[in-house]
């Protein structure tokens, strides 16, 4: 085979190997509250926002709220980033992050909020 093809193939294959490695290591899957509390990997937990539990804690510099999942299990979530646009009206919230055993709180790096399924007008115009 031509030398250039071989070099090209090596580059592509090594890039894909690196990508797959990164893929596996950053995979976050959905778990339940109890699983999240014992997991050492980043995970996602879906649940309902307990009404009235969200507030901005200036000392911790974070948004704090309680997440309750379908089974009734609850956990405190702390999120350092900007408050998602529809946060106060949400039904379902997905927290992505890791549970901190010492502080007994789920430190979320990302929050996904979903509005009621028959959403009146979607965030993106159907793109």
């Amino acid at each position, binding site marked *: 085979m031509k030398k250039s093809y071989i070099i090209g193939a090596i580059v592509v294959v090594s890039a894909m190997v690196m990508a797959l490695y990164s893929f596996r290591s950053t995979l976050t899957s959905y778990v339940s509250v109890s699983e999240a509390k014992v997991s050492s990997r980043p995970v996602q937990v879906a649940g309902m926002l307990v009404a009235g539990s969200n507030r901005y804690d200036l000392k911790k510099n974070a948004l704090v709220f309680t997440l309750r999942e379908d089974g009734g299990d609850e956990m405190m979530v702390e999120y350092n*980033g900007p408050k998602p646009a529809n946060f106060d009206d949400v039904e379902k919230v997905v927290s992505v992050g890791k549970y901190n055993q010492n502080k007994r709180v789920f430190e979320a790096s990302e929050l996904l909020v979903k509005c009621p399924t028959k959403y009146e007008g979607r965030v*993106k115009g159907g793109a």
Partner: protein
Amino acid sequence: MNNPGELITGLALIAIFASSLFYVLLNFKQESRGARTAARVSFAGFTVFVTLASMLLMHYILNHDYRYSYVARYSSTDLPLQYLISAFWAGQEGSFLLWVLLGSWLGILLMFKARDLEPQVMLVFNLNNIFLTILLIKQSPFEQLVFAPPDGQGLNMLLQDPWMVIHPPVVFVGYAAFAIPFAYAVAGLWRRQYDTWVRRALPWAVFAFVTLGAGIIIGGYWSYKVLGWGGYWGWDPVENASLLPWLAGTALIHGMILQETKKKLRKTNFVLAAFSFILVIYCTFLTRSGVLADFSVHSFVDLGITGWLVLFMLVFTVVTLWVLVVRARGVPVSGKGEPWSYFSREFGMVTAMILLSLSTVIIGLGTSAPLITRMMEKASKVSTEFYVNTNLPIAVAVLFLLSFVPLLTWGRNSVSRLLPKLTWGVGGAIVAVAVTLIHGYPGIEVLLVSMFGGAAVGMNLLLMARLMRKKVTLSAGAMVHFGVGLMFLGIVASSAYDRSEKVLLPQGQVRSAMGYDIKFKGPEFSPEGKGLRARLPLDVTQGDAQFTAWPDIFSEQGRGGQPKRFSHPEIRRGFVSDLYISPVDFDPGRKKTGPANQIRLKKGETARIHDYELTFTGFDVSGMMGREGSHDMRVGADIAVSYKGSEPVVLKPVITVGQLHGPTSRVKLPGPEDATLTLVNIEADTKTVGVVYDGPGASAKEETEETPASVIAEVSIKPGMTVLWLGTFLILLGGSIGIVRRWPK
């Protein structure tokens, strides 16, 4: 006739079928004029029907015809005109109609420009339109409701922004346009005209690049300007969905240019053209089928069209593979056996194409992760780290190429001849690295992006200037590359050197953050549509400079009874960096209550105190003076008061919002007794007022503390944003010039 919209859509489907059949006929009987005319007329008919259907939908929306489910779901009677128009594409069904509409108009242009390749090009293009029209019929915007509600649900606040008005149409023009190079590719290969299709399709490919690119950039710009999270790209599936065909399209453009000049990569370009088009459908599938519903901030609902979308993709993949297999052996490969020179423009371009395709596949992998993992173990997604970690090295490589490949000529080049031309590139690299290191070492990968980005900027700026002097259209590519370099420098600056601080600002007090002294002057409320906008003026001072920032929070009644809040940041742009102030939280404060009864009344509620019966009937906003910066926002409450069961009198206490007390907020109650009612609080989002009763029968209650209004703001300094937007603008401008350059005479 009950539902003209659905009838017209059905007619459109018939027309497009007819047109396709005639084009099939034309494929076998080239000379048949009758067939050609019939095909064209049917296509024109299709366009007319689709345009009529669109006009009908727009008519229903503008006239608030709530018999139609779509109109009721996405518009309301109080919506301003420009948002009524954009309600057309706010939802799935309308956006499909828009896509078909734009495709039909592009098709008319295509019909006239395709000339001898017309039958095959239009046939493939029509196949695309057939599928879209079927989807449109399945998900019809003309679905009627059993009974028409009195008012619509209104357009989501996030969509009520001028950028969000133009974003979807621009994106859909891009999606529709990507069908064209594909149609040409199939036509060319089928007719064994392996090179003419490239020359004809190239301006269309660049057009698709510019339009889809503009759509993507507008989306990012909106996200930055409106959402208040300070970013412009989240690697969310919907965002990635539009990026994938665009990256593939960029690779395609390079391949097509290479084929034009060196007659190589014929099969590759065919595959790339098909790939970019199929990616458009794949990404539509990802975003509209609900498979990613649990993994994205964008709300997805499975509308039952998943099966059709999969079929859509399969059909085109099969068509592509079939044509490729049948014609592959006949494709002439030029320069067989001739070794490629490594140090040549061709090799550089091919490497760039490989890198772009790699990025496409990787981002595609990440975006499809939930699908892939669902079939194996648990459905999971990848974090944003994945996209950054994998694309950073690719960006370094791309920028490295951009810093010298455009200078290379076709064929062999010598290093010694190249070196003197690199001065500007080297200069740019040195400046970029110096500026970067001054602000702190960002890690080797980011530093390399900065270095090669600077080199690319310097070199392509020189090239662009030189080519513009010869002939403007020749500078298209250099301008785009210059823009790409700037964009990456902007991305590095804003991602690696973004600094922010959160600060609590009680009304009237000066606090400092990020080197600025900030004072919250007090909220200004104004009712808007179904909710209330709280504008939060902040006096910002730094040294001698002072200005007022106006971030705001809009709140309205949500469906669950909870208020919904949308915040908007204030952005002060600078050439070097942006000052970004985002309201994180707002506390309207609590008023002092005197030793008297404070009553909270919801609209329509009645309360009894002493001998009075009070009913809050509604707000009176007739006294609102909406001058910019004025503190004279007055809101009144109409309270019907009945003394000892007599005829109720309507009192109208008024408060000047933003000030804690006002002279007109206290009204005397009817009747002989000396009693007053003071309006102390309004809450537009829950439609309640707070009033304080003072007079006989008032009980001495605990005084509650008066707390001032306060805002928690996040103050950020984001360097390089202007450079970033400038870069993206130049990409689009250069691309547009490129369309002109490649337009066949």
